[in-house]
C-alpha cells in the first residue's frame, strides 16, 4: 500500500513542529516545551512523541542533528516549516469561519427571541 503523505496535523503533531520552530530540541525538551506552551492542555505521551518524530523524519519534515548517547536532537526542515505554515493558515481559516458564524449567531439570537415574545 502506498504511503499517504501528511495533509492535516493533529494537535500533538502541530505542537511538535511548533516546538522546533525556533530551536533544535531533543525528545524530553519537546515534551517539556509542549507542556509549558499549552499549560498542560496537550499531553504528549512518549509513544506518541516517538511515533510522530519517526513519521516526521520519514516525511522529511524534521531531521536529526545530533546523537549523544541515547539522546537525539531534531531540527525542523524547510518542508516542515512549509507544512507548519500551511497548517497555520488552515487553522486561521477555521478560526475565522468559526468566529464569523458565532458573530452571526449572536446577532440573530436577540431577533429570534423578540419574535417569540407576545
Amino acid at each position, binding site marked *: *500500500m502506498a504511503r499517504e503523505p501528511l495533509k492535516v496535523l493533529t494537535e500533538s503533531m502541530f505542537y511538535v513542529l511548533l516546538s522546533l520552530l525556533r530551536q533544535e530540541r531533543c525528545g*524530553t525538551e519537546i515534551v517539556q516545551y509542549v507542556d509549558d506552551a499549552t499549560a498542560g492542555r496537550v499531553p504528549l*505521551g512518549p*509513544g506518541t512523541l516517538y511515533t510522530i518524530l519517526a513519521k516526521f523524519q520519514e516525511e522529511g519534515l524534521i531531521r536529526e542533528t545530533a546523537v549523544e548517547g541515547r539522546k537525539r536532537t531534531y531540527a525542523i526542515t524547510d518542508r516542515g516549516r512549509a507544512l507548519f505554515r500551511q497548517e497555520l493558515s488552515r487553522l486561521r481559516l477555521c478560526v475565522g469561519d468559526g468566529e464569523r458564524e458565532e458573530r452571526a449567531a449572536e446577532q440573530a439570537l436577540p431577533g429570534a427571541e423578540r419574535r417569540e415574545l407576545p
Partner: protein
Amino acid sequence: MKDHKRFLVPRDLWDVGTIEAWLEEKAAQGWILERWGTWAKFERMKPISCRVRLAPRRRDGAEQEEADALCQDLGWRPACTAGGDYQVYYCFDPTAPDLYTDPESQAWAWGKLLGRILRWSLLAGLLELLWLFLQFDDLWMGSGRVVEKFLSGMWAVWLFAVCWAGESLWDVIRYVRGVARLRRRLAAGVSLEPGDPNKAVRRSLRHEAVTWSSVVLLVGFLIFVMAGRQEMPLSEAPGPLPYVDLETLDPEAAGLEMDIARYETFDGLLIQSRQVTQFRWQPSVSVWARLDRVVCAPLAEALYRERISTFLDAWPGAEVREVTDSRFDQAAVIDAGKNQFFAGRLGRIVLAERAEAGTDLTEHLDGFAAVLVEFQ
C-alpha cells in the same frame, strides 16, 4: 515466600487490551512481569494499581533504547518484550500522560507492525496447508500402501495432523481477524478494548491442556506401535506359521540354505500381522507371506485390493486369475512368470503370498484355504 512465579498468559497476543488489563490485574496482586512466554515469569512486588501498555517494538535497537529512555523520563518503565514484536511498559505515576495521547499517531505506530503480522500470519496459514497436504502425499500421489499404513497406525498420525493443522488454521484465522479489527479500531481512533483477562487465561489453559494431552497420546500411541513389533529368525517362530511353506511349494528348493529367513509380527489397534520372509540370492528362491487380521471386513477388503494392486505395480504385465471358490470371500492368483502371487480374504483375514519358486500357486489353494481357516 517465593519471589518469582510463572503464570500462564492469555493466548492471543493481538488482543492487546486484554493483555494490558491482565498485567494490570497481576500488578494489583503484587506481581510484575519479568519475562514473557507461554508461562510468563513474574517478580513479586508490593501490590499496586498501575497502568500497563504494550507498544510495537522498534526494529532498530538504538531507536528502541532511545524510546525506552524517553518513556522512563516520562514515567513509563519498560519491562520486557512480548512475542518479539511488542514492548511492555508499566507506569506507576497516575499523573503521567498515557503512552499514546494521539490516536492517529498510535494508528501509525501499530500500522506497520500489524501489517507485518497479517502478512506473516497469512504465510503461516499457507505453509500449514502445504504441510498438511504433504502429510497425505500417499493419498494424493497414489503411491505407497495407504491402507496398510493406515491400519498400521498412521491413522493416529493423520488424525493428529488434521486436528493440529485445523486448530492452527483456526488460530491463524482468529489472529488475522483480530489484527484486522485492531487496525480498524486504531485507524478510527477508537481506544483498545480490554476483554475479560480471566476468560482469556482460561482459554489459554484449555488450549495448553488439549495440546499436551494430544502430544502425550500420540507419543504413547507411537510407543505402543513400536512395542507391538517383533522380529525373529524363522527357526524360532512359534507355530503355526501363516503360509504355505517352501517345502510344499517347491520341495527341491526347500533343501537350500536361505540368505534370509525371518518372521515378523505386529500387534496394532486395527491390525495384527504375521509375516514370513525367506530369500536366497543364488539360485534365486524366495517366499514372502503376510497374514493380516483386520478390525473389520470392509478394511480387510480394501487391504486385499491393495495387496493385488501393489503386486501389479511391480509386475504390470502379470496375468490375474480370479479364483471362484467358496472357501474364500475373495481370492486371486497373479502369474508373472517365475514370480507368482496369491491374495485371498476370508472375513477379516487377508493372506498374501508371493513365491519365486518352480510352482504354480493355483495348485496350492487348499493350503491357502487351510491357513485362512486356521487363523480365523
